[in-house]
């Protein structure tokens, strides 16, 4: 077994553990490379099937190619896609492009939308892969387990995460009072009103993700590659707050070279994400309230 086999096996074990433990399980799919790898690992774990819904939070400011790619893959792989959105904030124009500060915009369009989509308070828009139509779901049941593609190497606060991490009624996370996690045994029991976030990619690094994408030939969104203009995205988000980087890398192999010996060696992945830099330690503050 090489290191990718080991990471793959561990993630599959975690996904299967989540699937058997949580009656109402969902996976967050941001369309980015990490959660798309997670989706691929799901197909590995369940022998080609994707047995739980994929939740995407559409801020309405996503780079348009992301939505197109999302809908194409959903059709190709027969996915149960669930889309959530903060319609009220959008209708009132409470957004960064209308003058709101970045962090408040993130909170409204991402954290709040996520929270109320997961707990079923807000309507969910669902793709029905059998009938091939979009349907609205009102008063949906809350998801009790939510699979998320965060990695420990991304950013300080993420390295404190457990693989199975409890959130209370307010979706809040308290890093200092988490129960222990031992060997391969995780927290699979939960009190009513709480939910558990499951992190199968915690041990993966950015480099591992690209090595795996290359090995498995996973169809990743083309925004990650230089398509001729000498620019590519290293991390995907909303277009007003995410900038592409200068890069010639046209495929996973060239990205791996860039990360191991080239220009991005030792440069943080989220350096193109503006919200991380507003104030100090703000991502941890956002994460406490449920941000991914």
């Amino acid at each position, binding site marked *: 077994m090489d290191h990718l086999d080991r990471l793959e096996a561990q993630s599959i074990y975690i996904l299967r553990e989540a699937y*058997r433990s949580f009656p109402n399980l969902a996976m967050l799919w941001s369309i980015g490379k990490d959660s798309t790898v997670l989706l691929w690992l799901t197909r590995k774990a369940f022998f080609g099937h994707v047995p739980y819904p994929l939740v995407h939070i559409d801020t309405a400011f996503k780079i348009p190619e992301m939505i197109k790619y999302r809908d194409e893959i959903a059709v190709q792989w027969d996915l149960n896609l669930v889309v959530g959105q903060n319609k009220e904030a959008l209708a009132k124009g409470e957004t960064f492009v209308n003058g709101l500060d970045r962090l408040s915009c993130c909170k409204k369009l991402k954290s709040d939308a996520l929270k109320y989509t997961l707990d079923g308070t807000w309507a969910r828009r669902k793709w029905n892969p059998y009938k091939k139509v979009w349907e609205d779901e009102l008063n949906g049941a809350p998801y009790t387990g939510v699979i998320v593609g965060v990695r420990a190497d991304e950013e300080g606060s993420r390295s404190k995460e457990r693989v199975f991490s409890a959130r209370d009624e307010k979706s809040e996370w308290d890093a200092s009072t988490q129960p222990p996690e*031992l060997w391969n045994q995780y927290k699979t029991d939960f009190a009513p009103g709480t939910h558990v976030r499951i992190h199968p990619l915690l041990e993966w690094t950015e480099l591992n993700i690209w090595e795996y994408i290359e090995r498995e030939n996973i169809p990743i969104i083309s925004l990650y590659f230089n398509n001729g203009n000498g620019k590519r995205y290293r991390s995907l988000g909303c277009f007003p707050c995410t900038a592409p980087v200068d890069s010639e890398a046209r495929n996973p192999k060239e990205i791996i070279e860039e990360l191991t010996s080239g220009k991005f060696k030792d440069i943080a992945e989220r350096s193109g994400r503006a919200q991380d830099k507003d104030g100090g330690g703000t991502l941890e503050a956002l994460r406490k309230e449920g941000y991914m």
Partner: protein
Amino acid sequence: MQRLNIVITGHVDHGKSTLIGRLLADTDSLPQGKLESVKKMCENNARPFEYAFLLDALADEQKQGITIDSARVFFQSKKREYIIIDAPGHIEFLKNMISGASRAEAALLLIDAKEGVAENSKRHGMLLSLLGIKQVAIVVNKMDLVNFSEIAFNKLKIEYSEYLATLGIKSDIFIPISAREGVNLIEHSSSTPWYKGPTVLEILDSFKSVEEKENDDFRMPLQDVYKFTRDNDDRRIYAGTVTSGELNVGDEVVFYPSLKRSKVASIESFNTPVKTSVKESEAVGFTLQTQIYVRNGDVVARADQSAPKVSNRFEANLFWLGAKPLELDKPYKIKIGSAQSTIYLEEIKRVIDGDTLDRADEPSVGRHEAACVIFRVHDLLAMELFAENQKLGRFVIVDEFDIAGGGIITEVLEQYTNRRTKSSSVGNVLVDKASSSADFEEELFALLRKHFPHQFN
């Protein structure tokens, strides 16, 4: 590149963060400019630079003044990549230390040369042994504060070795270092001409990855059975992660404790060439030649190899982290392999705490204590002695909703037969409900098989 998970433990202020910071810096494993920026920051604030700040800067934990969780740090030697799990030394964070340490394949245990063996030095030594981490080096730090004295080093070595011996641990690897001055970390130092043993990096590179061990008989805790009907998929797939050995198409398998058996018809996988065999550590799935009803949590073994032990009573070494003490005759949940059941503490043989070691006649096991105990399980379980099979010889105990303790099985005892018929009704009896619904499932399955035989062929 090969990878090894290591944990660095020790009493608070014995120098873990300094050691890690120094290892990162001296092996060129820091992000570009990090060392300079931290040095600059210290200069601007008129405080002396310390290697510990590097880790704090990385892990974003400086404001707390103590490492609160087992943050993961990566570094590289010429031989391989290391993930250092920095386990907090503070007693309040013992559960974080254990979470970190349980993922480790080897450990460095830090002791302060000046302060000597502290309560947590003992406790951590004990926990590492209970977690089954056999590759442990004791690193005696801050040798600069005792003038690199060989006598002081030997005195401490003898004292701690004697303690470890009472736990049944033999460790002859003691390294005198000064993390702050970089003594004996990467290279031997002229400060300790009397020390001829390995440096810290040499000892790390000599540790074996857990995978490198000898072959064992096939074992796989059954994690789940899948039957996805979509796209007319009629496979009934038995899935799990192989904990030891190898399984091939055509092998006869036996499920424990149910003793059901069949032959492997196919190995299933997605986006790989067709497989005819699987081995240790792989997350796999297979189909069987005949359809049998088995429960999640059964242990799969090969008919031509040894069988796991089956019982509902066992003796164990256990450590307790729960807010409430572990009490006699109260229902808890056990998780072992992929199995779950209700469990009762039958007897406390002795409580071991860091300082006094043996205390007999305790009514319960308190938080942060370890004990030698006997457990009684509601259902029969397949299990192994920890000394013979680590992954099936260790278990966790769940109190209400959280993991509250863990342990290793030291002896499998004779079954008891007078089953309890009624459990009290706290949150821990979930499993009883689960097993009665499993009985129902089994009956239903038998009926379906009788009336719809074509579905099962």
